[in-house]
């Protein structure tokens, strides 16, 4: 455990999620400006910029670090740009953190932002028969919800999860996000409204699948020494996990056609999704029993239940009980997605993992107005990006 030498979150900022239809750079700059203000720093103080890429906004999106640096005004600052699908934000934070830990800089700005089209996330256009993400649409008609639904159906057939359990995750998160000014959807829903929404990919319904959104998020990371001079309420980055799977990954993952084969080598004891947070716990010497809250990637309502088990809140098959006992509701033992989660935000891919860290930071500072987890001391974020990208950030005060 690194303790007092941990990298510190000095500032956080977001541009509200929505369907604003403006250029992603505008959201990123707004979030960065907020985060710098929150840190009490000027743009000129930043010694490194780490951008999380967007794949849907042309070349500027592929070089996000440089794009945001140019938009804020070239200062000669070195940049990096990361792409790891939904985990891009965590990878960008890890690039910044390791640069600070290496002693190469004291202050880094991490930014991610996206402008998204309407509807299902579809692959970029053109004939690309060598790209599995293109082929799964062509050969299978398998959208993202297809894969989430496979996991949801397995929970039902293996653990006895019900439609009502999934609906109650949505009801909980809608309530959590009600007063979150950065959330796109701020409206209570009832269980029966969720269950009356159209089926998209059986057993998942429209209100149980997250939308795609525009949004931007930024964090200012600093060395412990620098942070001591600038804040009296440091939030420590106790660990960042950017784990990848261990062969053979025996769980079918988006956008793949098949799993790895376990004919010659046994699957790892911890499936990939469970290994993501485990790597963060291992690095920090902190365990799931220490958590005050968690922000997890609820691409579907049912997927949030998988995460309860994968971040170690309970054993496989026990997530529905945790939910129904109120453990994961604000006021319960370990609230999950107090921000409202993707359910209230929709997904802005490169910004989302950073937004999770913004929320946990506000919670640990006691500034999550209208959704505060009382006495929060330790929080974790977790998500998984396409093509084997794990992402988990463990924060503590």
């Amino acid at each position: 455990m690194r303790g007092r030498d941990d990298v510190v979150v000095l500032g956080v900022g977001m541009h509200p999620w929505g369907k604003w239809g403006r250029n992603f750079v505008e959201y990123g700059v707004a979030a960065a400006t907020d985060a710098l203000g929150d840190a009490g720093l000027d743009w000129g103080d930043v010694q490194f910029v780490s951008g999380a890429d967007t794949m849907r906004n042309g070349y500027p999106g592929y070089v996000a670090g440089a794009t945001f640096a140019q938009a804020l005004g070239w200062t000669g600052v070195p940049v990096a740009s990361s792409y790891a699908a939904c985990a891009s934000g965590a990878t960008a934070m890890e690039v910044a953190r390791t640069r600070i830990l290496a002693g190469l800089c004291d202050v880094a700005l991490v930014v991610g932002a996206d402008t998204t089209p309407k509807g299902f996330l579809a692959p970029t256009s053109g004939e690309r028969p060598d790209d599995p993400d293109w082929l799964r649409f062509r050969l299978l008609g398998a959208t993202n919800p297809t894969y989430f639904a496979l996991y949801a159906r397995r929970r039902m057939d293996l653990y006895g999860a019900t439609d009502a359990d999934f609906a109650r995750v949505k009801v909980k998160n809608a309530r959590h996000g009600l007063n979150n000014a950065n959330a796109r959807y701020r409206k209570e829903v009832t269980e029966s409204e969720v269950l009356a929404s159209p089926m998209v990919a059986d057993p998942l319904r429209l209100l149980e699948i997250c939308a795609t959104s525009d949004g931007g998020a930024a964090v200012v990371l600093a060395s412990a020494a620098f942070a001591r001079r600038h804040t009296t309420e440091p939030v420590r980055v106790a660990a960042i996990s950017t784990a990848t799977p261990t062969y053979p990954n025996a769980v079918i993952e988006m956008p793949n056609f098949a799993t790895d084969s376990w004919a010659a080598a046994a699957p790892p004891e911890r499936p990939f999704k469970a290994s993501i947070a485990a790597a963060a716990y291992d690095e920090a010497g902190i365990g799931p029993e220490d958590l005050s809250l968690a922000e997890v990637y609820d691409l579907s309502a049912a997927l949030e239940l998988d995460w309860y088990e994968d971040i170690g809140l309970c054993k496989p098959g026990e997530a529905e009980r945790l939910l129904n006992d109120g453990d994961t509701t604000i006021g319960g033992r370990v609230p999950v997605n107090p921000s409202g989660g993707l359910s209230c935000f929709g997904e802005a891919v490169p910004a989302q993992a950073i937004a999770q860290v913004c929320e946990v930071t506000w919670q640990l500072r006691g500034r999550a107005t209208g959704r505060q987890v009382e006495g929060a001391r330790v929080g974790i974020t977790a998500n998984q990006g396409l093509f084997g990208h794990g992402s988990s950030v463990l924060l503590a005060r």
Partner: protein
Amino acid sequence: MTKTRVPAVEGWFTSDPDRPALLGQRCAACGTYVFPPRDRSWCPNPGCAGRQLDEVELSRRGTVWSYTDARYQPPLPYVVPGAEHRPFALAAVELAAEGLVVMGQVVPGVSVDDLAVGAPVELVVDTLYEDDEHTYLVWKWAPVAGGGGA
């Protein structure tokens, strides 16, 4: 005019009308399997230095690992067969001998109500979509009436 029947993807399955099969690869050294087939020769098993993957037909029968359906029309490059979208089921199917789970559409006329985790299914080749000259074929899973797995 008869349309030419062509696979929608080259080299992933055989179209033998009686016993179609997925075409995978097997490492000559460790025996691990690969699907879909790759155009590179090294073994994906990090514990194996094998550099030869041989083409093999995969088991034609398996058991349902999980399943769902597509109620809405998927976006391009999916091509709707026929005039309008009809919901279809999809299944991820476990092949015991190969230690693989393989996705596929389920044949038309079978809904999620007809499927269950663990149910036996077998591979068929069916129409994915058509244009003026071609019928494009793909593998699909079909329930096996009262049959056992593998």
